[in-house]
């Protein structure tokens, strides 16, 4: 396990810096675009900007990590296709609503079971659906490390900006 630890520590130093620079850049970009947007109702703007900042944070972390990790790849894929998927989902909803009368409701036996711990973990870690437990644990470890880095950097940014 020593090798794993070594790899981890070597990684996090550069990951932190990379993430920090990327995140700052994206924040600046957002700031600039917001300035031109003008003032709007506070609530909506805040929620949207919160969401955008969050997505920017995740995206910059995923890019800083690179495509070498399953979770970063899955995260980037999800972020890129988010708009596309949302559009598809909306279309599907509309279509299904139209066809509901025509469609015959088939009785399907859905085996519902309480989500086990591994299922919960799979949902938490991006890209965790298509991995066996062994790889899932490994990805979780790396993901936790990167998340902790992300939190620290964001916290320092937030604290700094308060001064």
């Amino acid at each position, binding site marked *: 396990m020593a090798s794993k630890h070594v790899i981890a520590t070597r990684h996090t130093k550069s990951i932190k810096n990379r993430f*920090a620079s990327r995140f*700052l850049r994206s*924040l600046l970009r957002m700031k600039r675009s*917001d300035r031109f947007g003008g003032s709007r109702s506070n609530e909506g703007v805040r929620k949207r*900007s919160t969401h955008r900042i969050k997505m920017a944070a995740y995206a910059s972390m995923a890019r800083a990590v690179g495509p070498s990790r399953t979770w970063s790849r899955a995260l980037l894929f999800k972020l890129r296709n988010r708009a596309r998927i949302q559009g598809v989902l909306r279309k599907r909803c509309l279509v299904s609503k139209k066809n509901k009368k025509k469609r015959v409701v088939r009785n399907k036996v859905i085996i519902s079971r309480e989500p086990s711990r591994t299922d919960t*973990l799979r949902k938490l870690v991006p890209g965790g659906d298509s991995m066996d437990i062994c790889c899932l644990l490994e990805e979780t470890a790396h993901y936790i490390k990167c998340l902790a880095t992300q939190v*620290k950097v964001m916290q320092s940014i937030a604290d*700094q*900006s*308060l001064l």
Partner: protein
Amino acid sequence: MINKALLSAGGENMLHCTDMTVLDRQRARIKWQQEQQQLQVQLPQQEISYFSELNRVFQQAGFHEGGLSEVVTRSVKPDPGLVDNRWHNDHVVGFGVGPPYTNGLGFELNYGAICRTSSCPPAVAAAATVTATVRGAESVVSDKISSGIGRESSKKRKFDKVQNNSKVVAEEDTRDKRIKGRAEEGESNTSEKNSNKSRSSNNNSNKNNNSNKDNSAETSKDNSKVTEVQKPDYIHVRARRGQATDSHSLAERVRREKISERMKYLQDLVPGCNNITGKAGMLDEIINYVQSLQRQVEFLSMKLAAVNPRLDFNIDNLFAKEAFPACSTNFPTIGISPDMTNAAYLQFNPSQQQLVSCCGLDMGINPPDMGLRRTTSTPVSIPETFLDSSCFTQIQVPPTWDADLQNLYNVAFDQGRQTTFPVQPFTGSVEASNLKMEM
């Protein structure tokens, strides 16, 4: 390491401890083999004499089928290269011995063979006595009689070579001298099956356990010692003593060990789970931790969204903040220091109300953050850090801020972003904070 010391001591007892990792045993075995190779040349005559004696003893024991009388293979060492040359006959009979121990004479008798007789218990006892007589009163020799009826053809010992690209490197087998109660003759075909199946599956891993007692007479439990022609890309495995040796259970064992290894690593990452044993509890902790981290990210992004309007002239402060972590040499050991310095900065904020509210908010975050620290330092509550003057000593950043500031400026503002905020206000703020710190 223990094994090295023991190796130097002659390696008699080195392989007893089950705490040795697979790799350690592997290395020990290889070293031992190298030593043996040197010794091998030196003492051929004694081996021959011993073998003749052995043969005599066996014949006295009345083994039929002449199986045991063919005790021949006395390879000094289960060196894979040597073994292949010597043991390749189908009628190798004798005792399968693991990693040969050096007996008092300086060489070890390695009887790798299979007891063909069906009357195993007497064979075992006889063999035990034989070995007892032969070996004299010294080092423990690991003997193994694996009786394979109809399996002699591919009685090979599996050698784990470091060059295998498998993660699990099988270790050398170490056997203890089994005197009585060693009823594993019933071993049977397990090794044969193992050799075949493990050749086909890449993920078998056996581990040898050294235990001095073996009371189980079950056929399924036994050491499997199979020598094998070196095949690349296979994970060579050895079954532990007293464990099942069919390929399914072996593969499962490998999988289980991998999972437990990962769980241990996660235990180091997640704070506060040292006393939790078991996968279920650990998984719960991990899930909670990941959820809390994600919640923190969301909360911080909300905070940043609220603060965002002020991002303009705070960018330089931001960089000062960024410079600090960049200065630190070792990220994981920053530990409490960034947090404490954050607290210090917060302390110096002239607007106390804002500070209090922030602290109130941050209290929610920081205790978990404190807990997050992987360092062994005890989590210090924030109010204490406010009062603790020792935190000032950690703020060695100011002198180096400017240089790093410049770097960060270049990094983020290389597009010629016009700086409406010249450096002066920033340095002013730095000086102000410096002054405050000196207070």
